[in-house]
């Protein structure tokens, strides 16, 4: 669907630190009570299905999310997890794709499925009064997909078209190139969605086999959040999902094996001859989801590139006017993760922007963080935390992540305490331990004729054309 967004000034960027000596006054002390996750129940059914229930009564809506531990990292053929997830919507239990869409839309509801790096997500949102229609429909889609042959071929064509079209927007694909550059042949390098050639070759049989292998109750959690009676909902869920049976243990390989060791700086130059600007990422290895220092790193990254007044945005945007936005962040997976700095600039200022980004990044080691900046970043991450868990959809997503990554509510309930306890000395340890200092990896998407001469300055260059199938490597 076309989402037309008005021009946002401040981009969805966000954090910043004043390294200047100005003393930022705290006019208000933060509220005393730490933000706590609303009460919820976790139940495991006899068949191994994990169920989360959380009541939220503000609006008469219910969100139901299922997450299956299967994603691009499990792709035996590139794109199969994505095509399997989207294939769930092609008809089930004898109802056609069209029947399901008509029924869902008529209730004003939504029902969708997609796969990411490590999970496949099926999500429904509907009015509480429509539970008796929507929950069985959700179960049909998840448990009884038909993978209708005609619809499957149509979906495949649309996916291939979408993968080709995505290359028209550097912003939409730069992350896939970066993942491939860093992880190479390791499963974490697999782009969610695959590539236009691999998807075109996928068969119905492959998708059925992938479904059978992974979509099992002992490999799935269902989170229900919204306006319902908990005891009633438990009965509903047991009745609806209790008879679902596991065929076999899903084949999950350990992804801790074979992780890359980055031995030198490399540059992947992706040529888009008509580009007006260069879109680029710089970074390296990050942290896995279960890293105990994740909260502290959120605070440090806030200062570097996580808010509007962050060092990167302040230098590249505010001081230099080189870009509309510059940021940095950690993308964490179950057993590994990435760190990346991202921005874009007009072709002629590519070198200036990369150099300034690197120079700004080096401040982590050269200057470190001062107390006023740390205090500000702490207040900021605490203040911006509760709105991340406001809607039933956000809360259901959090519960799904708890299942997928194996953390519990202490992540939320201890968040403020962990932020508060971060000291200046500790930030230095975090910087020295986790932020990649050298052997940086670069992806530049832009006009190679103009950018190639400077790319070699940053590492060993590989050049591909943006229209080449896949994401380099």
């Amino acid at each position, binding site marked *: 669907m076309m989402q037309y967004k008005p021009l946002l000034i401040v981009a969805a960027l966000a954090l910043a630190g004043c390294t200047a000596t100005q003393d930022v006054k705290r006019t208000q002390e*933060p509220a005393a009570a730490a933000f706590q996750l609303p009460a919820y129940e976790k139940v495991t059914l006899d068949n191994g299905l994990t169920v989360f229930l959380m009541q939220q009564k503000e609006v008469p809506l219910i969100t139901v999310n299922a997450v299956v531990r299967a994603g691009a990292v499990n792709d035996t053929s590139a794109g199969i997890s994505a095509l399997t997830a989207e294939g769930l919507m092609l008809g089930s239990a004898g109802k056609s794709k069209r029947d399901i869409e008509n029924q869902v839309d008529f209730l004003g509801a939504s029902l969708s499925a997609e796969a990411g790096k490590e999970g496949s997500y099926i999500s429904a949102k509907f009015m509480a009064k429509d539970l008796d229609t929507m929950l069985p429909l959700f179960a049909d889609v998840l448990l009884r997909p038909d993978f209708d042959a005609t619809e499957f071929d*149509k979906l495949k064509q649309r996916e291939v*078209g979408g993968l080709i079209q995505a290359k028209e927007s550097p*912003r939409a694909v730069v992350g896939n190139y970066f993942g491939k550059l860093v992880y190479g042949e390791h499963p974490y390098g697999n782009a969610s969605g695959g590539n236009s050639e691999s998807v075109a070759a996928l068969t119905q049989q492959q998708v059925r086999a992938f479904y059978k292998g992974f979509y099992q109750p002992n490999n799935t959690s269902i989170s229900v959040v919204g306006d319902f009676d908990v005891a009633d909902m438990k009965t509903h869920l047991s009745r609806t999902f209790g008879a679902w049976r596991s065929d076999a243990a899903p084949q999950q390989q350990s992804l801790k094996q074979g992780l890359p060791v980055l031995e030198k700086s490399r540059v992947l130059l992706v040529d888009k001859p008509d580009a007006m600007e260069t879109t680029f990422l710089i970074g390296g290895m990050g942290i896995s989801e279960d890293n105990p220092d994740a909260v502290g790193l959120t605070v440090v990254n806030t200062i570097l590139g996580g808010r509007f007044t962050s060092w990167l945005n302040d230098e590249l945007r505010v001081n230099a006017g080189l870009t*509309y936005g510059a940021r940095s962040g950690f993308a964490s997976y179950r057993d590994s993760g990435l760190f990346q700095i991202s921005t*874009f600039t007009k072709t002629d200022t590519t070198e200036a922007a990369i150099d300034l980004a690197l120079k700004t990044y080096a401040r982590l080691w050269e200057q470190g963080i001062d107390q006023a900046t740390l205090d500000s970043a702490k207040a900021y991450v605490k203040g911006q935390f509760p709105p991340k868990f*406001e*809607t039933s959809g956000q809360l259901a997503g959090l519960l799904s992540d708890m299942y997928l990554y194996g953390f519990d509510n202490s992540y939320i309930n201890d968040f403020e305490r962990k932020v508060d306890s971060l000291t200046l000395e500790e930030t230095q340890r975090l910087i020295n331990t986790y932020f990649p200092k050298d052997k940086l990896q670069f992806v530049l998407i832009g006009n190679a004729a103009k950018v190639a001469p400077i790319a070699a300055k940053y590492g060993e260059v590989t050049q591909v054309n943006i229209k080449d199938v896949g994401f380099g490597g």
Partner: protein
Amino acid sequence: MKRTLSALALAMGLAMAPMMSQATTAADIKSFTLDNGMKIMVLEDASIPNANMYLFWKVGSRNEAPGITGISHFFEHMMFNGSKKYGPKMFDRTMEAAGGANNAYTTENLTVYTDWFPASGLETIFDLEADRIANLDINADMVESERGVVTSERSTGLENSNIRVLMEELKGVAFRAHPYSWPVIGHESDIAAWTLNDLVQYHKTYYAPNNAVVVIAGDVKLAEVKSLANKYFAPIPAQAPPREVKTVEPLQKGERRTFIHKPSASTPNVMMAYHVPATSHEDYYALELLAGILSAGNSSRLYQSMVDSQLALEADTYFPMSFDPNLFYLYAVGAPGVKADALEQELIAQTNRIAAEGVTEQELEKIKNIKLMDFYRAMETINGKANTLGTYELFFGSFDKLFNAPEAYNKVSTADIQRVAQTYLKRANRSVAVLSAEEEMDK
């Protein structure tokens, strides 16, 4: 305890969910107007320990003229770049140190500033906003670096979005008199050209309390908001109201076309637009429902006839709220191998079909359910609440109009939808933009 919003939902009144028995009263929303004309609305909601402040200013690209196109949006950037008490950079630094974040956006009609903060930061936010409203200090160096930022914003939008390219061209064709003709971000040469004095005048003219609507939603109390508003906003003097936009776009007397050649486009994109009345017009609700019947969900007419039939990868409508008569857009991205002409003809066929045959009662009921669901989604967050209230206040003349919406939507019949399709979605009123790698051939 979260307050339930069933009252407001009833007010929207697209449908009556059985569990909603509360009668609605305007008392759910508190509002007051300061002596300087600034209207402030408050919605108390303690569901999370946060609050927001949305400031809607009645200035957008419709208030511009050639030579200063894009200045409303540029000005939005300048509002973050220093004032008397909080100099350059200090607005953001102060807000973030208090746990707050902000953003802003500019449209054809409005400039909207959004502050999100822990409820404890309320006074800091009032102080920051009052300072930049009353005492903006436009710094010449900041203006120069901000030109680079906005030029980057403009080019990155065009670089990454064919929709942005199409819309910019299409508006230029559809409007030849009204300021809706140019993109909100402005022409590139204008971004490079306006002067410090242009900006100073702009602030004085449009950033007056009598030209604003403020909404605060979240974990706040009315009494506290009132006292802070009196302390910080009330002393800011009112200004003479800005000049009204009086240009009326002349009646379009035949189809207009534009073509964008983009060799790297993987498939053609088509956008078309029809002139429609302002949001305040009685046909607004019927057009809004028509847009939904065309494009909301996979059962919609455009999805079924274009995406499901493998003609398009996407097909959608866009119908923005607007102070002056504006456009009703349709848009499609071709599937591989599909020609622009086939996309265009199918979009036209779908609009003509509704004009000729109307829509079904079931489609009408469906779209009303979708609208109700949209409303509930908006009301799940304090941001959605602030935005909805502000929007009603501005585009319908008063947030009280929220309480007329039930009737307005329920009054729309299938005959009304057919009538608006016949009235507006016709060839003589249409402008078409095609973006493609293939040059259109001379016949």
